[in-house]
């Protein structure tokens, strides 16, 4: 099924390219990746060689300089193929975005060409064993020692932490939230694989340990005090954008699987598609996919403009699309019956991965709290516009 997005000629061409790549190189193997809980190095190299890993890096640093809509389409197609693999692009590009925005010229010169080509894989190290949604209060600490910082702490659930060459690590310096680039070959750094997850099984999750890990002060990104609010803020906004579009791809994968299945499977002498209760589920899937597509497209338009509304509208797109992905994946499994619970069809994996989309880059409960506040703000602003001389503004 093709979403009716408003695309220009170049974006349509890119979409066809991404779709063909995913159909040939990812979709047929995604269940195998899931079983083996790993993504082959050769595929990661291929993503780099095709320019997908460095798609959002600036052209002058060897990246693709890809526009927001085309980037969304890439995330969408990868989300359809393998949400785990999407998460590689997500975390790698989150680090790129953070460096583009807040890195020093030296950091950009050193890292961007390698990140753009995929020679170096980057991961985002924010979550900790005891800190999830309340990420501003992480416990990892860094102390200044001469020209270095000495970092101590634990990070957990780090996507592609098993293979990343460099981490964008968040910790506190004298209580001030700070971001550091930490290479994986530094003394004091170690990692262990996390397996057996519900979803994102081939996202190669790791627990990271930093024990008196010495990092040069030149590796600090942004400034102490702005690690969470600005460096992580930039990266997480970008991450939510990727997840929203990836959820749209996962929805598309569910719908494609159901339309194929309902068109072939017969029960009670009639194709499934001719059973009204199945049609009801298909109709709801279709409508929700259209709504998610429009929200994602709106986020892409605002991202391209650098419009301040981008932040909230991306949050809304992520919230809606990930929630719709879970509902749709549940119905997709239901339509497939026992087949949907087995590995021969992709829908069980879609369901497990969809649940993860509701948790990462800001849980949906965090999104709800923020969106509700946004609703009150918008309401108050519209009341003020209607009655500019009014003496009070209701919150």
């Amino acid at each position, binding site marked *: 099924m093709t979403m009716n997005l408003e695309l220009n000629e170049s974006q349509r061409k890119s979409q066809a390219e991404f779709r063909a790549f995913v159909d040939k190189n990812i979709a047929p193997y995604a269940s195998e990746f899931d079983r083996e809980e790993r993504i082959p190095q050769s595929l990661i190299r291929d993503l780099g060689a095709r320019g997908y890993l460095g798609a959002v890096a600036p052209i002058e640093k060897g990246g693709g300089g890809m526009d927001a809509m085309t980037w969304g389409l890439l995330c969408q197609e990868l989300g359809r193929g393998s949400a785990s693999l999407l998460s590689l692009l997500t975390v790698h590009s989150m680090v790129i975005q953070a460096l583009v925005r*807040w*890195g*020093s010229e030296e950091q950009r010169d050193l890292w961007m060409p390698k990140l753009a080509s995929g020679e170096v894989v980057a991961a985002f190290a924010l979550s900790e064993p005891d800190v999830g949604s309340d990420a*501003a209060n992480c416990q990892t600490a860094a102390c200044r020692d001469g020209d270095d910082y000495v970092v101590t702490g634990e990070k957990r659930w780090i996507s592609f932490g098993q293979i990343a060459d460099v981490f964008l690590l968040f910790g506190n310096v004298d209580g001030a939230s700070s971001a550091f680039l930490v290479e994986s070959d530094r003394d004091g750094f170690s990692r262990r694989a996390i397996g057996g997850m519900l979803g994102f099984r081939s996202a190669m999750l790791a627990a990271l340990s930093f024990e008196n890990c010495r990092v040069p002060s030149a590796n600090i990104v*942004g*400034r102490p*005090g*702005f690690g969470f*609010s*600005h460096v992580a*803020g*930039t990266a997480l*906004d970008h991450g939510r954008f990727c997840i929203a579009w990836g959820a749209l791809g996962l929805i598309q994968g569910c719908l494609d699987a159901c339309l194929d299945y309902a068109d072939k499977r017969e029960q009670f002498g009639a194709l499934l598609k001719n059973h009204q209760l199945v049609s009801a589920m298909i109709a709801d899937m279709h409508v929700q996919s259209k709504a998610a597509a429009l929200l994602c497209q709106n986020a892409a338009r605002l991202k391209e*403009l*650098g*419009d*301040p509304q*981008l*932040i*909230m509208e991306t*949050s809304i797109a992520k919230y809606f699309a990930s929630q719709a992905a879970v509902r749709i994946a549940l119905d997709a499994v239901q339509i497939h019956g026992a087949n949907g619970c087995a590995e021969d069809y992709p829908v069980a994996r879609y369901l497990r991965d969809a649940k993860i989309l509701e948790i990462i880059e800001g849980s949906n409960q965090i999104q709800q*709290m*923020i969106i509700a*506040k946004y609703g009150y*703000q*918008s309401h*108050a*602003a519209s009341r*003020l516009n209607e009655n500019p001389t009014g003496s*009070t*503004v*209701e*919150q």
Partner: protein
Amino acid sequence: MRSCWAVRLARAFIAIKREFDVDADAIVSKIREFLGQFISDTDLDPDINLFESGLVNSLFAMQLLLHVEQEFGLEVTNEDLDIKNFRSLNAIAEFVIRKLGARTEA
């Protein structure tokens, strides 16, 4: 130190007025309008610390950043990351005036 800062700010005001015909009041007013989406006007003391007040949510920093860039045609860089530039309405206005002034002088 303080007098040096005051002279620089005054020069920036003059430069902005000359180049853009935008006065400091207009800048303050535009920032106030933006902040009004987050904080009711009655609560908006121009010197209140926005980040310590608990009045704004965690995505506010990014929204403020994009707003300042789009509204005033600025680029906020690594070097501008100083809480002194963003902590209150007045601090943001002074920062914008300084940036516009620096650009005009350049």
